[in-house]
């Protein structure tokens, strides 16, 4: 949709704004894969020239990806280095020159040669599916290079730019130099698209789902206003200047709003911390912007999901440190890996269970000797990652049922050098014996989702039982009260980190029962804070 922008710009495009900032900069279009040359494309020169053009394209692709591998580092670099090997593959070159020799045009020869190997890899099934995607990416690049056009992919520029794309895939964003990206504008995508998530996490203004974005021209000046969800094309100098003034005022107001988030106090003077639930470093910016006073639940599973091998000590160290550094001077409560038959991990085979929610899940999965080392590695990585970051690290285990399990976990965690050790209270038995359990550890955090499902014997996923899945049910509140009371008696913090903590109607009730902190999705913080004032 386009409409008249008044006198400030030549036209205005609309989309969904992510963030509230506005910024001006030149368009950099993300290269778009073009259809491959057809089988009858006439060659531009004799076979020897076509062969050289095709092989030069492959060398160009290898050089470009090699350069990107150096910039990327980590796992992204390994994928890119494997692609470089593919582009340099001697059999690929043979397949290309066999075709140019019989009069096939360079671009078509490249396309057909990749096709031969693509068919082989695709035939090998799921193991090689990702390599097939890598090969397709390579083929698109090489075909563009053979035609003398820019390769598809994220632009690499010296000056800051507004990235305009169809939509961004995770692979694109891994390669994107975000220092240079002023704003993101995409033709497709909504508020939960990968582009939007990236924009929020990195604090880059974005407007997604902008019809007509791909018709913008390279280097055209844009004013991107995320708060309005608007993209102004060719704005006047006056218009850009007034937008800058409004942006400065907005930043000042935002700074004041954050400064105003002083801690919540109960009438009897207890301080209640409002914390964030996060899954990794991508959530840090959101949590801090929303005024979180720390992290009440760092779900470490994200790093493990879909992994066929447990993440290495080093990978964990890096991932945890990225989170801890964001919360220097604050508390971060990290939960050890929470897996089960209902959320399986390929490297932690737990077998089929008739009733997964009552099966080997949470801490139970690590109590057999074969898997104990996974927990030990995670605890060691957490302790090491916290060092020197200034974070106050607390670590807790999920699905603790009794004091013996709490004692076992506490010993493991302390041995790994964790100073503050706690447990999740989500099994009714644990709430009933909270005093005995808290005697073994330093704190507890109540997971109201599972506590409610187990207390009411109502599966979280069964819609027909919705009426019973209420954390505000008196039976659940009694268990929460018992746990909070035990904590008060022993002088140990008891927080809530389930959905109930982020429910403005329940938050005050939980605090009245003696809960010392509430941890919730960053987006819920403002509303809960307002409800508690």
């Amino acid at each position, binding site marked *: 949709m386009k409409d008249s922008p008044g006198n400030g710009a030549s036209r205005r495009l609309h989309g969904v704004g992510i963030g509230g900032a506005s910024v001006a900069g030149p368009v950099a279009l993300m290269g778009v894969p073009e259809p491959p040359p057809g089988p009858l494309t006439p060659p531009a020169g004799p076979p020897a020239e076509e062969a050289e053009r095709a092989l030069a394209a492959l060398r160009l692709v290898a050089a470009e990806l090699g350069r990107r591998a150096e910039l990327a580092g980590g796992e992204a670099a390994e994928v890119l280095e*494997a692609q470089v*090997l593919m582009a340099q593959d001697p*059999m*690929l070159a043979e397949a290309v020159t066999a075709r140019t020799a019989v009069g096939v045009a360079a671009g078509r020869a490249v396309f057909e040669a990749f096709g031969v190997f693509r068919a082989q*890899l695709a035939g090998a099934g799921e*193991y*090689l599916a990702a*390599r097939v995607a890598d090969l397709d990416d390579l083929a698109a690049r090489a075909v563009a290079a053979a035609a003398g056009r820019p390769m598809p992919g994220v632009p690499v520029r010296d000056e800051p730019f507004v990235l305009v794309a169809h939509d961004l895939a995770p692979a694109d964003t891994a390669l994107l130099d975000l220092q240079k990206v002023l704003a993101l504008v995409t033709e497709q995508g909504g508020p939960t698209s990968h582009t939007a998530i990236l924009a929020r996490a990195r604090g880059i203004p974005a407007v997604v789902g902008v019809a007509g974005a791909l018709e913008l021209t390279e280097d055209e000046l844009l004013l991107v206003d995320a708060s309005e969800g608007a993209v102004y094309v060719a704005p006047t100098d006056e218009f850009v200047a007034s937008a800058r003034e409004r942006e400065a005022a907005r930043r000042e107001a935002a700074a004041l709003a954050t400064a105003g988030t002083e801690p919540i106090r109960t009438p009897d003077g207890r301080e209640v911390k409002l914390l964030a639930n996060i899954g990794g470093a991508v959530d840090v910016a959101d949590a801090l912007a929303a005024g979180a006073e720390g992290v009440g639940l760092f779900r470490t599973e994200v790093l493990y999901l879909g992994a066929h091998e447990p993440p290495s000590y080093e990978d964990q160290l890096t991932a945890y440190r990225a989170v801890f550094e964001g919360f220097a001077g604050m508390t971060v409560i990290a939960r050890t890996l929470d897996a089960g038959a209902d959320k399986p991990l390929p490297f932690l085979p737990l077998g089929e269970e008739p009733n997964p929610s009552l099966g080997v899940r949470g801490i139970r999965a690590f109590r057999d000797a074969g898997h104990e080392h996974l927990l030990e590695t995670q605890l060691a990585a957490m302790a090491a990652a916290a060092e020197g970051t200034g974070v106050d690290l607390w670590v807790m285990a999920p699905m603790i049922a009794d004091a013996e399990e709490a004692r076992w976990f506490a010993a493991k965690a302390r041995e790994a050098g964790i100073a503050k050790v706690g447990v999740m209270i989500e099994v009714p038995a644990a709430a009933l014996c909270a005093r005995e359990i808290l005697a073994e550890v330093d704190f507890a955090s109540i997971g109201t989702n599972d506590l409610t499902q187990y207390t009411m014997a109502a599966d979280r996923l069964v819609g027909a039982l919705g009426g019973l899945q209420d954390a505000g049910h008196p039976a659940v509140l009694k268990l929460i009260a018992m746990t909070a009371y035990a904590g008060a008696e022993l002088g140990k913090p008891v927080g809530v980190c389930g959905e109930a903590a982020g429910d403005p109607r329940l938050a005050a009730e939980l605090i009245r029962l003696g809960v010392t902190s509430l941890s919730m999705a960053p987006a819920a913080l403002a509303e809960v804070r307002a409800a508690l004032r």
Partner: protein
Amino acid sequence: MQRTVTVASRVGLHARPAAVFVKAASAASLPVTIAKEGKDPVSARSILAVLGLDVRGGEDVVLEAEGDGADEILERLADLLTEDLEG
């Protein structure tokens, strides 16, 4: 000269282990082929051909090279396959 080796990497000769193996084979002074038992050999210097073999962890492969130093080259490549290349 031939050698039969059991691939140790649990992910098989895919992804990183394949890249490490092909790089080593490309650096060798003699051409080397790799085959699954009973199948046609392919060049060990071709990542695409090696991936196309779809070798799984625990499967046997046959390495072959002819000429001066073939023994050491096969030895070195066999060592790579019998250690866990996922590192």
